[in-house]
């Protein structure tokens, strides 16, 4: 069997047309900024900061040594074999990353370092395929710098994990990082400010990050990149502070500060020209909310030479018979727009092949749900949640390399279940919970913290619970209608659009299905779709006797609600309502204001 070549090799081979004069001018400007920064730096304070950090490290090492030596022999052996217990000591006030990697016991730490090295290897190999534009992006866009911290993000998401859950988390994280790395290289090659590859731009169309990627499955010769995903949304989950300059830019421009930070960041980046100029066509969308819908006019203004197709799906999607045909027609029109812009032809064979894979991936996902609904959930935590979202929304069966990886994970999952493992070390499995509303767990590492600090196990989040019906893979007209149904139920939109039943009644249904009477009710202060059912959720939740812990946040703008404030809401509830004791007291209070 021939080795599957994905992504299409001609994307890598596309010739760059770098305008060196432009790069020189940009370099001069960047150097000017660096020069000013160096001049403005208080070197005395900087030196003191370095000395203080070294002293703090020394104190920390001494403290850790003392604590270890204070243990009896059994305790020492336990630490060596099973890892550390006080994870709060990994944080230090003023530090942008954790002070060191976690000790997970001999076996798991070794495995963790192997995965750490494997990830580095993949990143270096991928970026080396066209290194100059990729690295040059760092001189054009400040968000690119935050990607250098992606290993820190990985560490954060697996904090406290051991055994099979750790292994599965690493496996899925690798899949996401590979997608990100490859697309960052392509994005840099195509960007007319940077790699300026005319050849690649002819083969490239981009789409709004709030649109699903499945439509690209019918164009195997084309590259499709979610335009703002890498520069905005995903990187903000690595570094919550990265979007602040963009939010400030658009608010200075006149946008009210009560809007969702996702479209605000996108528009801010457009206002100050911080998004790549790439592709032959941009597909905007009406999803998932009013704010996101409006961001497209900012795009059209920044990039007037890139044609825009507005892919608009019915909001009231449960009225399927009356609305789905209009949505299917719009997909047809979108396909034609892509064909017109790129000269490529839609391939039903390629589309059906990818959707068969997607259907199989859906089956594998449902298998995970079955296990996680049981008394012994196996694969939970932020890595899994992020993977589910990415796989459903962006990959969508297109990348054939994902299937073997998912199969491998499910094999581990079943084995772990049969062996009686638990997703977290036993002492952390105290409460079964689900997450509802716009989640902020990546920014704040929240579901991970909930388990490590209070033993609250988040079994599933709202955004994972999407369309699970198999997509049609034979009848072409029905296939388009099915694709429309899928898009109508994209992440977020599945619940926040189409009627309150999708988010209120559905919440209680899921609480029952997962046997999870504790709900982390994320309250994004700027999400109007969710804010407008706040009273109903509160009222009905209390009537049903569930524990609803309301956690306010503002996604990628921690100035509105800090991570510490978010944690305090849970601390307060657990102490005063549940009269609970923390599993790891070192995580109840710690400083992470500037920590990614």
């Amino acid at each position, binding site marked *: 069997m021939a080795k599957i070549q994905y992504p299409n090799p001609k994307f890598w081979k596309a010739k760059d047309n770098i305008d060196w004069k432009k790069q020189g001018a940009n370099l001069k400007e960047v150097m000017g900024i660096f020069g000013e920064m160096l001049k403005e730096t208080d070197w005395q304070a900087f030196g003191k900061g370095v000395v203080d950090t070294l002293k703090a490290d020394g104190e920390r090492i001494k403290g850790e040594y003392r604590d270890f030596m204070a243990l009896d022999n059994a305790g020492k052996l336990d630490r060596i074999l099973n890892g550390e217990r006080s994870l709060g000591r990994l944080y230090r006030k003023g530090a942008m990353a954790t002070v060191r990697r976690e000790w997970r016991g001999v076996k798991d730490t070794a495995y963790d370092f192997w995965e750490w090295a494997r990830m580095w290897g993949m990143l270096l190999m991928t970026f080396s395929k066209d290194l100059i534009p990729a690295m040059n992006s760092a001189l054009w866009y400040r968000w690119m710098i935050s990607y250098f911290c992606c290993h820190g993000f990985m560490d954060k998401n697996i904090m406290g994990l051991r055994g099979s859950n750790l292994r599965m988390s690493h496996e899925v994280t690798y899949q996401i990082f590979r997608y990100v790395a490859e697309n960052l290289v392509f994005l840099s090659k195509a960007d007319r400010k940077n790699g300026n590859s005319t050849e690649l731009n002819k083969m490239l169309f981009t789409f709004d990050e709030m649109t699903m990627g499945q439509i690209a499955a019918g164009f195997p010769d084309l590259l499709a990149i979610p335009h703002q995903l890498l520069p905005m949304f995903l990187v903000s989950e690595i570094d919550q502070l990265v979007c602040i300059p963009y939010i400030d830019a658009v608010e200075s421009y*006149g946008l009210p500060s*009560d809007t969702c930070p996702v479209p605000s960041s996108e528009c801010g980046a457009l206002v100050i020209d911080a998004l790549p100029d790439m592709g032959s066509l941009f597909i905007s969308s009406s999803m998932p909310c009013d704010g996101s*819908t409006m961001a497209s006019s900012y795009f059209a*203004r920044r990039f007037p030479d890139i044609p825009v197709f507005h892919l608009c799906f019915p*909001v009231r999607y449960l009225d399927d018979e009356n609305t789905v045909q209009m949505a299917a027609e719009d997909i047809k029109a979108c396909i034609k727009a892509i064909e017109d812009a790129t000269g490529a032809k839609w391939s039903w064979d390629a589309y059906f092949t990818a959707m068969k894979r997607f259907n199989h991936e859906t089956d594998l996902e449902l298998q995970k749900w079955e296990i996680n609904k049981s008394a012994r959930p196996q694969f939970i935590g932020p890595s899994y949640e992020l993977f589910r979202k990415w796989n459903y929304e962006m990959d969508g069966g297109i990348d054939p390399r994902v299937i073997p990886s998912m199969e491998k994970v499910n094999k581990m999952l079943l084995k772990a279940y049969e062996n009686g493992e638990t997703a977290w070390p036993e002492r952390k499995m105290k409460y079964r919970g689900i997450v509802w509303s716009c989640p902020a767990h990546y920014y704040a590492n929240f579901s991970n913290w909930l388990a490590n600090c209070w033993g609250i196990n988040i079994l599933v989040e709202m955004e994972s619970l999407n369309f699970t019906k198999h997509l049609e893979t034979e009848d072409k007209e029905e296939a388009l209608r099915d694709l429309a149904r899928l898009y109508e139920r994209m992440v977020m939109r599945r619940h926040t659009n189409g009627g*309150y039943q999708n988010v209120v009644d559905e919440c209680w249904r899921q609480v029952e299905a997962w046997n999870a009477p504790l709900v982390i009710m994320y309250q994004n202060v700027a999400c109007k779709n969710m804010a407008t059912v706040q009273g109903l959720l509160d009222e009905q939740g209390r009537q049903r006797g569930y524990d609803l812990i309301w956690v306010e946040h503002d996604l990628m703008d921690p100035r509105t609600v800090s991570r510490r404030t978010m944690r305090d809401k849970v601390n307060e509830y657990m102490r005063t309502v549940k009269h609970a004791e923390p599993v790891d007291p070192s995580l109840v209070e710690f400083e992470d204001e500037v920590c990614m």
Partner: protein
Amino acid sequence: MKDLKHLIYFERLLENADNELVEKAKAEGGICLGYTCFHIPEVLLNVGNCFSTRLRAPNTGSIDIATYYMSNYTCEYARALLERAIEGGYQFLDALIGVDACSMMNRSMEHFEILKVNSNPKFFVTHCDMPFKITDYTVAGYVRQMEAHVLSQLHDVFGVDVSDEAIRAAVAEHNEMCRVISEIREMRKADNPVITGYEFHLINLVSYVCPTKLILPYLKETLEELKKRKPDRKSPFRARVAIVGSEIDDPNLTKLIEDVGALVVSDRYCFGSTPGREVIELKDDEPALPQICRHYMEVSECARYISDEKVLQRRETADRLAKEFNAEGIIYEQMKYCDYWGFERALVSHIMHDEYGWPVLSIDRLYNNGNSGQLRTRVQAFVESLEIKRIHKEGGKA
């Protein structure tokens, strides 16, 4: 100028959603259909023995209960309606025809259902899906929505005649009213108009909230009165402005603007006359419904339409109206927390200034603004800037 004969009466009609003419129409056996959004063709709610009333919550005070349900970061108009509904203020409605166009208004209407705010046994709330752009298939989708969620429901629940003839009759009556309003609106183009922005606001608003058949005689009489009305020898206003933006059903906002010296000459906002008071031209060789749907889609200036041509249309309309009505500046406004107009206002207020050359005042505002000192100060400053510009244009001759 001499006061208009029916001005006080119009003000009184606007003091309650359940006004005297609504009561009268109901007493005569009319079916009262509430709606809020321009996306619902007003004429379809006036077929047979139905009549429409565009919902307002005049004299809104506390909205605490609605805020509990919908939080404090959401549209005050949507919350004010819910609050009034919970208080029992919309008990007179026979049905509420809603759209899922903006999420906050949609949620407000969903609460009407969930909280059972209306005890009429036949009362229902319906939610229609609205397209985001105009194509053959979105027009067809819109028509299907109107058939399924408006006409069929009216027929099934109340036995209303929703035939093509009945729809055409409703359009004829609607057009008669639009012609009257349009003729009055044209008077605003004069250098020293015989009607103020506030007066026009009242006249236009009563046409939305009262049964057409009952308000029409008053409108006609007012038109005749205006034709004979003599303007003041010298206009008391210092500048002329056009207003563009989101929902305004509070005439006190226009009053506030005019009190500081800016005559409002054009009203391009929801509840305004553009769009809303254009005559609907129907051909005989096609059913009325698709023609009506197409008309509403084409004249709509809602920021929710995101296709390129509609985005451009909104800017061109603002420019055209400001020119036609001899405005010197444009006030871009949005209801606070309105996402659609928040994004639109921020961007287009720059575009209208930078590309179209208009002086622009960009504001976000609450639902009720009659006493806003901050807003008054901002409009005052804008009026002064327009005066200074005029002086510069005239070569410094004050």
